[in-house]
């Protein structure tokens, strides 16, 4: 970056030749180095979505609940309250510097929610790593969890749910998808806009340093190369400052004199100034000499590109600037007027008396759109031919079950989430580990259920079906506690979009995602796309992570997964098909990552959701758990062991028909749930299931100290639940 001239600088910062040409025509002159820097970040994949924007238009924006679509975070409105949420990736920073990468991911997503004017009340994270036998993967795994704990616990927003999956495909490129959810009275929401000539632009929070320069354009929008020199692009997080920033910002918004607010995350000052100007339909003039700096001698382009954390930009009504600034000073934060709103339509940046950038805001926020060619990957035809006859049925089901129960992807996540404060805020009324997590809203009868979901192996085997299944699973998971799915945020993790096979995966997945959400009537209110998730060995499994939020009408009725007493009748809802492709059983026990994955039957899924919601509402269920990875066997184990006192159960699978035993136990057919009811409620359950059209089978009864699984006369499994519990809980404990 020493010679700051024209095209070579543009290339260095990741701009293409044709993009540089477009900049020339927008400006009608040669851009300054600061302008090049600003275009490079605004038009980067991370901020501008050039490869995905066209496809994102496919996603449904309407649903049963009224949607709320904003700049940074969207949400739904229920009972006059805005529930705002968004998921975002922080994959590359976390791979390079796990602890700080994950920590600043949390910080960033919290500020996104804060920027909408909502108080952040919960975080979730969906994490994917390489297997822990790999030394680097273990280091990344530990660092990321430590980073989430370090930042999330201190900032005082509970980390309530999420996923952790380990597959070889994520070795060298982990996924750290973080989600935050906030609430606010509908009328209190703010927008990211600068409006009204003469109003002030106020910079608040931390000082600006050289950290994170090019984080979004260089780190997040390119593949990892062989030469790793990207560490300086990772930002450093300070959760204490963020906590103060949350309180101060909400206090400032409460005054009613803040016209607009935007976090300074990716692309820092560039993104916040240009997007606030563009969405306010105005211009801004900024004087960089007034920006609080952490180090001396920073160049204007460095100040504009810095991704220093814990900063926000406000547009404040003239006359109230002192009042607002005082609030931030009270919390020990910076608060400086750095510019004002102009009716120029331009982002004008001054530095030491000179104009260093002068760009039409709308042009800056209109990145190019690319839809390169795409091609079905060759591997798909080869790996989707799994035949049941090619594997022998297990001779010892107990061994298989114990192996699966303690395997990395199926065992309890308790050792991970107990490192996070998941209770602060005293809203977590259904705690993680007991089933679907439910948050209360103080003073309301209803509650909010949250989950994240995606099975990357399914998506690898079929990006379209895998994406549909991710939506279906998330919705099934929410409805199992009685919540009606209300809104989706997505975090789409894929490889290099300039490679036709990767781009094909992306388009397939987004079409599948769109189809499922549309069918269920769930709007996609916010999201994020993360491309270039590759390493020198190849690409990741395509992973369209779904964050889903649901509403439980009567929170007291929300059901958890564990068996709560003896002599409950255990019922399997839904149909078990002869499907084993893509299952953890096939992968872990038979070492085959083969498909086809389970087929998604959207009408059946929707009917199951309705049935579960109805059964919870009518207070028929004692417990409910959706079936997913590990199939019926894992659902039985979880229901037996998640309560404080594990409880035995005895089931007979004979009624499920003439299907091979390993398929019955471990197959992952969708559209199923395992529930328990008291004897007197069985009739009602059967009546509702018939009305809604969901097949059901009474398979057993709770009680005793063992998990017993039979098929007719044949005993498949008989294991003490205490043993299963310690196997299940021990694996990720290290």
């Amino acid at each position, binding site marked *: 970056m020493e010679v700051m001239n024209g095209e070579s600088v543009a290339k260095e910062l990741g701009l293409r030749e044709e993009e540089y040409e477009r900049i020339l025509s927008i400006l009608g002159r040669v851009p300054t180095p600061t302008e090049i820097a600003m275009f490079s970040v605004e038009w980067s994949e991370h901020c501008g979505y050039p490869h995905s924007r066209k496809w994102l238009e496919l996603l449904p924006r309407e649903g049963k609940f009224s949607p709320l679509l904003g700049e940074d975070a969207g949400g739904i409105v229920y009972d006059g309250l805005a529930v705002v949420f968004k998921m975002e990736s922080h994959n590359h920073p976390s791979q390079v510097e796990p602890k700080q990468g994950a920590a600043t991911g949390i910080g960033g997503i919290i500020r996104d929610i804060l920027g909408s004017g909502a108080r952040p009340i919960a975080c979730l994270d969906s994490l994917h790593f390489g297997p822990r036998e790999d030394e680097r993967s273990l280091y990344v795994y530990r660092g990321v969890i430590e980073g989430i704990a370090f930042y999330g616990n201190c900032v005082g927003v509970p980390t309530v749910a999420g996923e952790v999956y380990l597959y070889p495909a994520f070795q060298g490129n982990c996924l750290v998808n973080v989600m935050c959810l906030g609430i606010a009275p509908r009328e209190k929401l703010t927008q990211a806009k600068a409006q009204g000539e003469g109003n002030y632009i106020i910079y608040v929070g931390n000082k600006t340093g050289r950290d994170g320069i090019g984080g979004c354009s260089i780190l997040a929008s390119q593949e990892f190369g062989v030469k790793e020199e990207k560490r300086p692009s990772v930002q450093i997080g300070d959760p204490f400052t963020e906590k103060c920033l949350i309180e101060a910002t909400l206090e400032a918004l409460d005054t009613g004199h803040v016209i607009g607010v935007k976090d300074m995350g990716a692309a820092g000052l560039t993104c916040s100034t240009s997007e606030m100007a563009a969405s306010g339909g105005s211009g801004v003039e900024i004087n960089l000499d007034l920006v609080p700096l952490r180090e001396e001698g920073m160049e204007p382009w460095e100040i504009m590109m810095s991704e220093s954390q814990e900063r926000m930009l406000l547009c404040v009504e003239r006359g109230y600037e002192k009042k607002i600034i005082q609030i931030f000073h009270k919390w020990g934060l910076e608060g400086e007027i750095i510019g004002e709103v102009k009716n120029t339509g331009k982002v004008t940046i001054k530095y030491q008396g000179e104009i260093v950038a002068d760009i039409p805001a709308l042009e800056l926020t209109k990145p190019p759109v690319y839809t390169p060619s795409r091609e079905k990957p060759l591997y798909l035809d080869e790996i989707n031919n799994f035949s049941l006859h090619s594997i022998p049925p297990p001779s010892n089901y107990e061994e298989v079950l114990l192996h699966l129960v303690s395997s990395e992807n199926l065992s309890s996540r308790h050792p991970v989430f107990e490192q996070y404060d998941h*209770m602060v805020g005293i809203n977590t009324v259904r*705690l993680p580990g007991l089933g679907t997590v439910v948050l209360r809203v103080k003073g309301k009868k209803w509650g909010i259920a949250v989950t994240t979901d995606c099975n990357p192996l399914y998506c690898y085997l079929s990006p379209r079906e895998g994406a549909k299944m991710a939506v279906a699973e998330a919705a099934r998971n929410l409805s199992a506690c009685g919540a009606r799915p209300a809104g989706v945020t997505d975090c789409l993790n894929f490889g290099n979009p300039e490679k036709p096979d990767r781009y094909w995966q992306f388009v397939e997945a987004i079409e599948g995602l769109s189809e499922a959400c549309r069918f269920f009537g769930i709007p996609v209110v916010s999201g994020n796309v993360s491309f270039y998730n590759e390493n020198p060995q190849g690409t990741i499994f395509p992973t369209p992570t779904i964050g889903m939020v649901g509403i439980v009408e009567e929170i007291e009725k929300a059901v958890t997964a564990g068996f709560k007493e003896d002599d409950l009748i255990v019922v399997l809802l839904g149909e078990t098909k002869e499907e084993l492709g893509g299952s953890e059983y096939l992968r872990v026990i038979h070492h085959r990552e083969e498909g086809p994955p389970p087929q998604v039957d959207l009408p059946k899924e929707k009917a199951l959701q309705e049935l579960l919601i109805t059964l919870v509402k009518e207070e028929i269920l004692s417990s409910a758990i959706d079936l997913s990875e590990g199939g019926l066997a894992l659902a039985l184990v979880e229901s037996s062991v998640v309560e404080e006192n594990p409880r035995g159960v005895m089931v007979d699978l004979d009624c499920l028909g003439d299907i091979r035993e390993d398929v019955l136990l471990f197959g992952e057919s969708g559209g199923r749930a395992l529930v328990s009811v008291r004897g007197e409620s069985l009739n009602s359950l059967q009546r509702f299931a018939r009305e809604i059209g969901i097949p059901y089978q009474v398979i057993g009864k709770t009680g005793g100290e063992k998990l017993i699984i039979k098929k007719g006369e044949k005993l498949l499994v008989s294991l003490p639940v205490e043993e299963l519990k310690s196997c299940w809980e021990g694996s990720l404990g290290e």
Partner: protein
Amino acid sequence: MRFGVVVFPGSNCDYDCYYVLSQVLEVDTVFIWHGDKDLKDCDCIVLPGGFSYGDYLRAGAIARFSPVMEAVKEFAEDGGLVIGICNGFQVLTEAGILPGALLPNKGGRFICRQTYLRVENNQTPFTLLFTPGEVVKIPIAHQQGNFFIDPLYQEEIKKQIAFRYCSSQGEVDANHNPNGSWENVAGIISKEGNILGMMPHPERAAEKILGSEDGRRVFLSVIKWWEEKRWK
């Protein structure tokens, strides 16, 4: 009577305590800013959990120098009631208002989970609604809760133990010690009995919907004690 909840920058259980006191128990409660020395005529001061001043240097190490702590110290010396929860307990030991120190958890990690506590002493303003030896369920969430006391003072401090970590059946042993605390200590009172420090969060166990109501009795004890003035 009136409760005051101190707000340090970085406190994050301040609102939870305020909510439980003012909304659930419906007692007069105010916030007290860390920069103020005026305790607003409160009868019981709550130092809430969180990461005061980011817990930089050491948990609670900076908070003890804040103006409000001068006032709290005076208040405590005059026999005023003070409850330090989690980070608040750390602040009290750092300030020398309570004895001992809270070291990093054995294992080094942050732990958030439900724990069972055995009530060791119900002759205090904070525990009079419990029965001696009663087992209660109140969650913890901390990284530095490993209570340490110099061997010289151990005998003396034993009388000041209010809560100890135990099993659901009340067994106090190493298997039910989440953080390595000396004698499974979860909470202690001052020699005079007017100050309680505890790592578990009673405000997180004050409503049925949260899975336990045991914690609310800590606050209710204070209210009852205040009303009866039976402590001297």
